[in-house]
């Protein structure tokens, strides 16, 4: 598994996302309120626009989520499944911090 550094942990605002360009992939990186990190694809599968990193981060029944800013479908940050329509799943990627730097692993 290869890791790509994308930004400093402090570059990420709590409960907000940012987008990283890894090769040709757009990866949405999220920092939740409890300090955890999640990475998903940035493409909103419903509109086809690359905008998920700009959605509102929250929880549904305790599970961390992001809502697409386009038409508000809610995705699990853990599994990538759309919680309003579980047949739609966005990709998720491993993410970690190495001495203050956020790294993602994109196959």
């Amino acid at each position, binding site marked *: 598994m290869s890791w790509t*550094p*994308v*930004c400093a942990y402090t*570059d*990420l*605002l*709590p*409960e*907000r996302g*940012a*987008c*990283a*360009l*890894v090769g*040709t*992939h*757009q990866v949405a*990186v999220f920092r*939740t*309120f409890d300090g955890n990190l999640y990475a998903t*694809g*940035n*493409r909103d599968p419903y*509109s*086809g*626009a*690359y*905008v998920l990193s*700009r*959605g*509102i*981060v*929250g*929880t*549904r*029944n*305790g599970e*961390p*989520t992001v*809502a697409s*800013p*386009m038409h*508000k479908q*809610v995705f699990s940050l853990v599994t990538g499944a759309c919680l309003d329509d579980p047949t739609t799943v966005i*990709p998720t990627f491993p993410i970690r911090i190495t001495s203050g730097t956020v790294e993602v692993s994109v196959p």
Partner: protein
Amino acid sequence: MVKPPERTIGPMPVSLSPAQPVIPARVVVVGHGPSAYRLVESLLARGFPGAVTVLGEEPRPAYDRVALTSYLQEKSVEDLTYPVPDGVDLRLGSRVTGIDRAARTVTTATGETVPYDVLVLATGSAPFVPPVPGRDLDGCFVYRTIEDLDAIRTAAATATAGVVVGGGLLGLEAADALRGLGLATHVVEMSPWLMPRQVDEGGGAVLRAQVERLGLTVHTGAGVKEITGPGRVTGLVKPDGETIPAQLVVFSAGIRPRDELARACGLAVGERGGVLVDEGLRTSDPAIYAIGECALVGGMVYGLVGPCFTMAETAADRILGGTAAFTGADLSTKLKLLGVDVAQFGAMSGALDVTYLDPVGGVYQKLFVSDDAATLLGGICVGDAAPYDTLRPFVGKPLPALPADLLFTGGGASLDLPDDAQVCSCNNIGVGAVRTAIGEHGLTDVAGIKSCTRAGTSCGSCVPLLKQILVKSGVEVSKALCEHFAHSRAELYQIVQVRGITTFTQLIEEHGTGRGCDICKPAVASILASLHQGHVLDGEQAALQDTNDHFLANLQKNGTYSVVPRIPGGEITPEKLIVIGEVARDFGLYTKITGGQRIDLFGARVEQLPRIWRRLVEAGFESGHAYGKALRTVKSCVGATWCRYGVQDSVGLAIELELRYRGLRSPHKLKSAVSGCARECAEARSKDFGVIATDSGWNLYVGGNGGFQPRHADLLVAGVDTETLIRTIDRFLMFYIRTADRLQRTSAWLESLDGGLDHLRRVIVDDVLGICADLDAQLARHVTGYADEWAATLADEEKLRRFVSFVNAPDVPDPSIRFATEREQIKPALETQVPA
């Protein structure tokens, strides 16, 4: 459509041949009032294949006469007019003067002769004017048509006092109208108390006290000796000799069925008027029906629209060969007159009765029950009509609780209504039909019930009951904002204000669960913004915002944003226009004039936004808040400065208002407009708050909406000066911001506000809650604390850091964004997007 139950009653008034199985080819209807409207609609709904001709005397199609008074307040003729179905030959201004039963034709005053196979008389009734001296003087009116109201309005403009003759339901409505037109108003009623047909003596006393408290003068037990002139009305003399000085008299002393056509052609009529019909609504000539207020059925002439509608449906069924029968109707009434609830249902007497009287609060409620106290017979309410809503369906049925408990504990709301009880008497709809519709169509609100069943669409008095049925059907009408907060937006507002909460984290930790979502976070951000000054992207607040507020621009379908600089009142200098053109050209943006009198620049990538705005801010532009739930635009017409009709400077006022309320965060977006005269070129009445200039000042209209559900704004105050106008708008906006639901425009808020426009006026004009000083101060803080969001953002490196497409490649544009060209400008090219 609900058919009245099939039943026969005793001997019929006239003996008739059995229903003809042949469906007539030509139906002609005389009169186009509510009854005729409903008849035609029912005929067509039941698939009537023949020709329908309607001859109406009035110059306009049928309108909702029940709501007539609202024409003097906020409604237009169009608002009140019923739709005319396609294919109906409706001839307006066409008074029928004769019926030739042998030839089966009718003739009109315009000389037309119209043949029929079936004729329906729907001629309604005319106000009764007692034969007193002076009744023909200028300044004497009746209260029945749009023309009557126009004439009254014109006369009121030069009058100071008016008298209504008759203190019944319609008389008090007319009195309220005169009061609304600014006249010192008197009511003269022959009976010892007001509304003798709906309330008993005790109720009448409470009603009188309430009506007098509103400034009306009531004369009961008094007739009219004469009306004094000469030429024009100068006063009304009572039999006791007392003279009431007045320039306007409205007669509302009862109605008489318009049976003159029937009499003239030899049809049977009642001794005291009314065209005699059987339970199939047929007159003594089997080819002629009579329906509505002109008909005498089962010994009764009905003066309420509900029975008229039922008659119309029954006649339509019969004309098509059916067997429906009209066997009487519920005469329950509930109204709000002069702000006082008055209601009566079922019988007006009984073996036993229970009364609740609160003379201080102005409440009188009485229930009549059978001698074993087991069956509810009827009731009377004044001041508080809650028992009408909850108990009317139980008339003739076993009482759901002890009568005293029903009145004293207000325990009505928990009652289970029987399926066969009637809920909407105007449209004869049962509780069962409403429950079925809720279940079958998954309805969740009253609007849904209205469109599926018609219940609640006429007088509206059954709406509280409809709500109650919804709640009882287990429909989720929870006020919880979302899974994170069990509170409504208005409650959260209170909590944040009273507890002095300044962050979302504190609010959700103390009053919610989890970490929020796209519903509660922007709502709380808006509450925090209206209670505390500061930038919407300060600290933790930034994370609460929707993407639009987060980037201070509007997200478009391809992930780019649009930019809308503020152009207050739509007024712009050539220099500024050039700057917008240059910026658009230099950044390759699509430009369009919006429906809000400003210019939208589309297709900007996030990393371009600060650069675009730097240019705009330098040229003197500021954020137009097109992205926020905040004030959008105050549109204006060109107004008195240029327009030859204008009476005030509408542009100047629009700019003043736009600058005052810019940046004000609210439950939903706010729109406004100012027109320079009554021609209304700025469309102010479709706005959340709209202003129309008059010769003497400004009229303020509130609660208008375009959008999904258009609504004309209601007149809140009239003819006020600029200072009063602005103070009233300040309070209106702050009161809305405090109490509305999330994403509830002012239109829906006003409709759901208990007590409606009257209540709003009491709160923000009369200050009955004592909160106006507070509202004023809060708005003043907003005005002084305002700063342009974009200028502040450009001055703050921390805030600017978010404006990148990629956190690890700040200078790289998003390669998924591609454009094509159309009509010489860019447009999103969605199909060429790179795969994930």
